[in-house]
């Protein structure tokens, strides 16, 4: 009996189960402790969730960039977080100009759209250049080579921003029309968070339609399925890949503006952590899977927003909010270890080398 058990599951599997079980116990224990202590009211929890949704939708938009690229090239575009930074950071200067001239107070929607355009265009340009210069020549190289390139590109871009724009933290100007709250079926929602959630939903739906319904989207899916066959069918694979990078970059740029609305602050290194988190989200939903990335992003956003107060507080850890990022990274590690195919399953798992 025992022997058969051991034959079926090797030692590492058992070790992993034990780790998983221990973690589950800790999480449940912490949550129970917090809830029974009754430190936070229902309204606070709701705020946590709304905030989680808002930041989660930003993660989701970035995650789509990872997923789209991974779906086609099977490579982690490690520099995607910096594509995101490039857009917001550049748009910051436009935002300041608009706000100083008083334009953004009069036409806040228009000025937001201008910012969005700037960020999208810049991020897109960076993503396309990245592909052209750093990734295209390495398309048939051993797998570690493009990853190392991407890491190098990531650092290169981070320090480029720092050297070009300065190392200080810059604060986005407030939009006066978006301060305060909306009453939404009896619950109060911060206006900025509401705008962020709504606009990211619009973008995600748009992307889904683009990928599923348009010809370009179809070509993209075909290339993801099989590059050679797609080429034989008359699809220009290089062009589709550039398209994919551009699309991912555009979404990252948009995500950047939403991020700036939520957190207000930008700096040269801001993209790194959201980038890793968005990657986590992409893996969480099953990398290569578009709806998965969206779900993964929202899920991660909520976990990150609830986690510190729900679990860590209950465990008696001091200032749990400092460990917010650690929770996200822990999620990343756990997902990759226990369910690398993600929640929705990885469409391309059998090809993963």
């Amino acid at each position, binding site marked *: 009996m025992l022997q058969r058990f051991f034959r079926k599951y090797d030692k590492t599997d058992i070790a992993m189960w034990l780790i998983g079980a221990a973690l589950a116990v800790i999480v449940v224990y912490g949550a129970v402790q917090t809830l029974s202590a009754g430190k936070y009211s229902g309204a606070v929890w709701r705020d946590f969730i709304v905030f989680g949704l808002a930041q989660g939708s930003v993660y989701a938009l970035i995650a789509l960039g990872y997923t789209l690229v991974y779906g086609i090239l099977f490579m982690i575009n490690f520099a995607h977080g910096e594509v995101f930074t490039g857009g917001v950071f550049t748009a910051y200067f436009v935002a300041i100009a608009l706000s100083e001239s008083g334009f953004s107070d009069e036409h806040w929607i228009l000025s937001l759209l201008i910012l969005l355009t700037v960020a999208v265009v810049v991020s897109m340009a960076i993503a396309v250049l990245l592909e052209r210069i750093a990734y295209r020549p390495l398309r048939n190289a051993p797998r570690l080579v493009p990853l190392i390139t991407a890491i190098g590109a990531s650092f290169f871009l981070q320090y480029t921003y720092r050297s070009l724009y300065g190392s200080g933290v810059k604060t986005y100007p407030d939009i006066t029309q978006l301060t305060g709250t909306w009453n939404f079926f009896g619950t109060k929602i911060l206006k900025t968070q509401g705008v962020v959630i709504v606009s990211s939903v619009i973008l995600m739906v748009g992307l889904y339609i683009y990928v599923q319904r348009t010809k370009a989207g179809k070509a993209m899916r075909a290339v993801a399925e099989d590059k050679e066959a797609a080429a034989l069918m008359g699809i220009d694979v290089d062009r589709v890949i550039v398209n994919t990078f551009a699309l991912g970059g555009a979404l990252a740029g948009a995500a950047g503006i939403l991020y700036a609305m939520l957190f207000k602050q930008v700096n040269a290194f801001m993209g790194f952590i959201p980038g890793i988190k968005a990657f986590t989200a992409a893996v969480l939903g099953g990398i290569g899977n578009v709806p998965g990335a969206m779900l993964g992003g929202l899920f991660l956003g909520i976990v990150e927003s609830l986690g510190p107060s729900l679990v860590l507080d209950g465990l008696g850890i001091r200032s749990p909010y400092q460990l917010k990022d650690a929770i996200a990274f822990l999620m990343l590690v756990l997902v*990759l270890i226990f369910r690398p195919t993600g929640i929705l399953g990885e469409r391309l798992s059998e090809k993963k080398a």
Partner: protein
Amino acid sequence: MKEESTFTLRNAVQFGLITGFIILYISLVGMVVAFNERYIIAETITLGQIVVFLPLLILGYFSANRAKDKQGIWGLLMSLLLGVVAGALIAALVYVGTHINLRTVFINAAPELFEVLSFGRQSMGSVALTLILGGGFLAVLGGTFTLLPSWLRRALVVALSSVVLIGILQELLSITFGSRDWFKPVNEFFFEQKGLSWTGSIVILVIAALWNISRHLSRTRSSGKKKNATSRNIRAVRIASWVVGGVLLMLVPRFLGSYPSEILTIVGIYIIMGMGLNIVVGFAGLLDLGYVAFFAIGAYTMGILTTVGKLATVEWSFWLALPVAVLLALLAGVILGIPVLKMRGDYLAIVTLGFGEIIRIVVLSDWLKPKIGGAQGILQIPKATIGGYEFKGPEQVYYLVLFGIILVSFVAWRLRDARLGRAWKAMREDEDVAEAMGINLVNTKLLAFATGAAFAGLSGALFAAKLGSIFPHSFNLIVSINVLSLIIVGGIGSLPGVVAGAFILVGMPELLREFADYRMLMYGALLVAMMLVKPEGFLPEATHVRELREEEEEIILEPTAAEAP
């Protein structure tokens, strides 16, 4: 339209724009102004100007080379066009920059930058003329290199780079040898107040060129002879050179004094880490981005066990704590290794990165502050002593680090061709095949992680004992990236490569304070450039070259160190 392989006018303009944008980039990033303080040749040329000239020379060379099939003069015309376009672009930047305040966006677009880029001209017209003509001239100069025979070209490149290198090292040389008697006349001969003297630079140029040419000649002449040497002779020479090298290494701090020893110890600490990561990444092919975690574990173990400050626990001596630090790091390597056993390639990289970040965040947080000091770190870590001898300054710690390097490289060297090393390499090439050949993947992987982690632990322990205090921000991701870059630049899997990489990537920026600001920028660019141009590194390991170059034809590479001078 001409055929695809030829270099058209359009290509030349494209190259010119690329060159121009590279120079704009270098200027706006602030390198030009930052490097302008350092004269290479006194009163004549600064490092900042060289940084501007270099892209023109290199791309001028390339475009002429691409256009070479069309008679020599055509290529030079292409170079000229390129240089003119690039020069015009710089002129445009100067024009815009002097009329509009770019500084609100680009912090480095200061008046000093435009002063440097104007090359002493006053009116806009003459600035533009200088830049355009100068750009064309430099690009043509780069282009003429294509007309030279390759041995002469190589000799010239080496000679010019030696001049620049020695010019850069002026400060270091005078710090190191300033007090010696023999240094004074040498210094006066070669150097002015700032930068090389003209006579000095010409002498260096000639010597370096002659040396290179003579080496080239002797290589072509003796290529057939070498086989005659008996193996015993080779062995005797090798042993002798080991002995001489060892004695020299022991004497280094005596010769150099405190500041260079300090740099050498830092380089040494990175060499130890590099040797460890080289086992994980280079031998076993497991890309570990959280490597700094083990370094941190080593340093923190040393700190906690030996500190006599506020966080004092057991107050052990260095020698007692050292094995504990190494063992704990090793253990951590195994523990973190278990969950990632089934992971491959890029997922592994991301997970290890996650581990590294988790450890850093936890160390920084208030949670463990009573134990390990949070952001304030651990202070008052005593220095190592042996008998009555205290390893207090860099000149003493040097020996400690040297001992560590010797130990670690010996282990790595013996492991490389041992059964375990071959198992690692087999696993790197193909996990499934390796498993089918009877290699126990679990043990082999865990041993790789454990060995690498132990090396990092040793390095961390030495680091703690060297500094006397440790802070969590010494252990961020950048350390992992530094170590990764150095083994990649040196050549993945190659032991001499680790040493060379550490000297280039860690030693150089420590020497040159202007470089410090651009260090990560250059590392990033270097990683990309290496992967694109020379993925096997500068001192490659034989099997790895074959692996990487399997399907490519041999490409003859030109000596380009990208934008970094």
